[in-house]
């Protein structure tokens, strides 16, 4: 759901930037004025423009920090842990998982780097984490929609990378 919104924001802002830049370039282009005149207004606008973008960037950062996924696995002591072990080219993991229950996937790999990408019943990415050899990544999730979830490898792992799939049912 969120990624659709991201696409809309992207197309909207990019479109706006393209139109604005083309308009500024072509505005009364046959009626030139000295560079000093453009600079005088331009520098004044630029100061606000630069500060605005920087403040927006820092604000976005501050706003997104609480949504980072890294603390979630430690936050819920009562979450049920499920191991996920990836290897070329399959996942070993439970086939059924509970609905509306906090879950932590303990994800690792037997050989190379893999990606544990969970696709929801609507076939959009629900969540993901890397599966690394010698390391365990803890991914906390709570499934609120029942159905069949597909797991796809989301890190290049070798010749059958695109065929590396699995799945589980949430009931």
């Amino acid at each position, binding site marked *: 759901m969120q990624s659709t919104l991201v696409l809309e924001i992207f197309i909207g802002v990019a479109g706006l930037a393209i139109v604005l830049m083309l308009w500024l370039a072509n505005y009364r282009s046959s009626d030139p004025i000295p560079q000093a005149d453009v600079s005088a207004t331009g520098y004044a606008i630029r100061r606000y423009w630069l500060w605005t973008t920087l403040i927006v960037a820092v604000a976005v950062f501050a706003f997104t920090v609480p949504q980072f996924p890294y603390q979630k696995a430690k936050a819920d002591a009562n979450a049920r*842990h499920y191991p996920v*072990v990836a290897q070329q080219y399959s996942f070993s993991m439970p086939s059924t998982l509970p609905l509306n229950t906090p879950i932590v996937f*303990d994800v*690792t790999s037997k*050989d190379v780097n893999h990606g544990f990408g969970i696709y929801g019943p609507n076939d959009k990415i629900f969540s993901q984490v890397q599966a690394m050899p*010698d390391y365990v990544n803890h991914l906390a999730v709570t499934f609120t929609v029942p159905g069949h979830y597909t797991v796809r490898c989301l890190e290049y792992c070798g010749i059958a990378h695109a065929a590396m799939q699995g799945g589980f049912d949430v009931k």
Partner: protein
Amino acid sequence: MSVKKILGWIILALTVLVALIPLVRGAVEIPIPQHHLIHAALIAGGLLSALLLATPSRDVGSGHYGWLLLAVFSPFAAMLLMWPSEYAWYERHASGHILEHLGILGLGFITGYAGQRYAAGVGWATGLSVVFMAVASAWGFGVAHAISPMVTTGTTAQSAATSAAQMLRSPDLALGGKLFAQNCAVCHGAHGVGGEGPSLIAEKSRKNFAQAQQWIMNPSPPMPKFYPAVLTRSDVRDVAAYIETL
């Protein structure tokens, strides 16, 4: 002679003295990361003395590419000298060890000296580069990460099925036995009793777990090499664990 040059010679002399320590200290085993860091210190000493001793070239326009080539290549060569699997051999052979130390020190020196001779400031860049490489090596070059214990904070967590970490940490003996029967038994006999190849009964007394894995991954002829074409890294671990039980 300027103070700078005197300081340079003193640092060089001290670093050479440090490089000679294996001569008096005899055989000691140091973990690879610490070994890397000691080498980094030798490089830093050689580098610092070079930066003090070299007369920097101000003539960038005609700076000689020979110096530049030397300055960029020496870090590469120094890293190759820091070959982690050779460290065990060096620890038993003091004369080889000090040659290796002097080589590393020398390459650190050349990196800085050649860089400064090419153009002022370049020696600092190439020098910081090689010191960074040597220090950063300690966290991964020849160093494997041990899986950390699971974060088990609650009772539910502990009651979960086999944790992923345990599945990786304890090798799969059954699978190891199967792989042994498929790939190794032809020569070593069923259950390792011996055949064309040597018996592996009580192999544990000759090679520890890590050595057994290393041998499987990198054997000497006539034993064929199955890793990584046939056996994965985790297969090797399973087979080695199985052999240790014979």
